[in-house]
């Protein structure tokens, strides 16, 4: 085990996304009626079935034209399979995510937009994506998971920079 891996192991931090794992504890920021509000992810997932998908950034190309639309298209099908909530996570602030949720139609489709503003969840999952030439630093790779009571039951993780198996249709096909 590498020094870094051992350090993470000793701290109890799991790197990577593995079926059977519990999603790490995280404080995310959402937009409430009175402005930004902190969301305890573990509490939000407890006792529920949820889809979480993550992507490099609001208003970026494939995220806006492909990834988010794929979950807008499949939102009803996920609900028909008993999914209580569909959550989109990006390393953005809640203001940007709220504007993006409105302009893409994701908010209207019932998708919850949550910001991993400091990137802590993304780092804990080992999903950090950085492309300085695009001004994207400490962002998230694309992945989509189905969670039952906070535990990962299905996971599709894309190669960095691609939007292939983390789409709504691809995750739906695994259920």
């Amino acid at each position: 085990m590498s020094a870094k891996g051992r350090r993470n192991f000793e701290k109890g931090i799991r790197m990577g996304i593995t079926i059977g794992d519990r999603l790490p504890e995280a404080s995310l920021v959402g937009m409430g009626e009175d402005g930004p509000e902190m969301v305890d992810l573990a509490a939000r997932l407890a006792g529920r079935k949820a889809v979480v998908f993550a992507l490099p950034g609001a208003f970026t190309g494939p995220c806006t034209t492909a990834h988010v639309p794929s979950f807008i298209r499949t939102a009803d099908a996920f609900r028909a399979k008993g999914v209580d909530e569909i959550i989109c996570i990006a390393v953005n602030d809640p203001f940007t995510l709220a504007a993006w949720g409105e302009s893409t139609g994701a908010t209207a489709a019932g998708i919850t937009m949550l910001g991993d503003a400091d990137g802590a969840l993304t780092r804990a999952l080992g999903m950090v994506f950085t492309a300085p030439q695009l001004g994207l630093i400490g962002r998230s790779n694309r992945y989509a998971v189905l969670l039952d009571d906070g535990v990962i039951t299905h996971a599709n993780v894309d190669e960095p920079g691609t939007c292939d198996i983390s789409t709504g249709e691809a995750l739906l096909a695994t259920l």
Partner: protein
Amino acid sequence: MIAVGDRVPDAELLRMGSDGPETIRLGECLAGRKVVLLALPGAFTPTCDAAHLPSFIRTKPGFDAKGVDEILCVSVNDAHVMRYWGEMSGATKAGITMLADPDSAFTKAVGMEFSNPAVGFRDRSRRYAMLVEDGIVAVLNVEETTGQCEISAGETLLAAI
């Protein structure tokens, strides 16, 4: 914090071009020109969106008349977000250049960074506006609190020059 009479530090900022983000060297952009630089905590945030940026859209013709070559809006956001904010707010159409300082390097170099984890802000920029002449700060208006937009507004800067 940067002050009147100081040279604005050179920095690389990003602007969205037709083929994706492009790097802008601020030093080159300021050399031999009269430039207004406004900076704010974040795209799509209430005060920035409802007050600060609109105040420069309103006063753009006034700055043009006073010989200002360009108005730059800088925020610690990425170039994608700045592009859409520029389009949605009308700032791009008004001729304001939207520039991203994604890693906060410029904002830190001028000593304007602040954080507020409760709203997801890390190393964002305080709200200010300045007139820069040939790279030197000629007028600097810094807002006391980030939720306010009075001294940093377009009208205030225009009245000072």
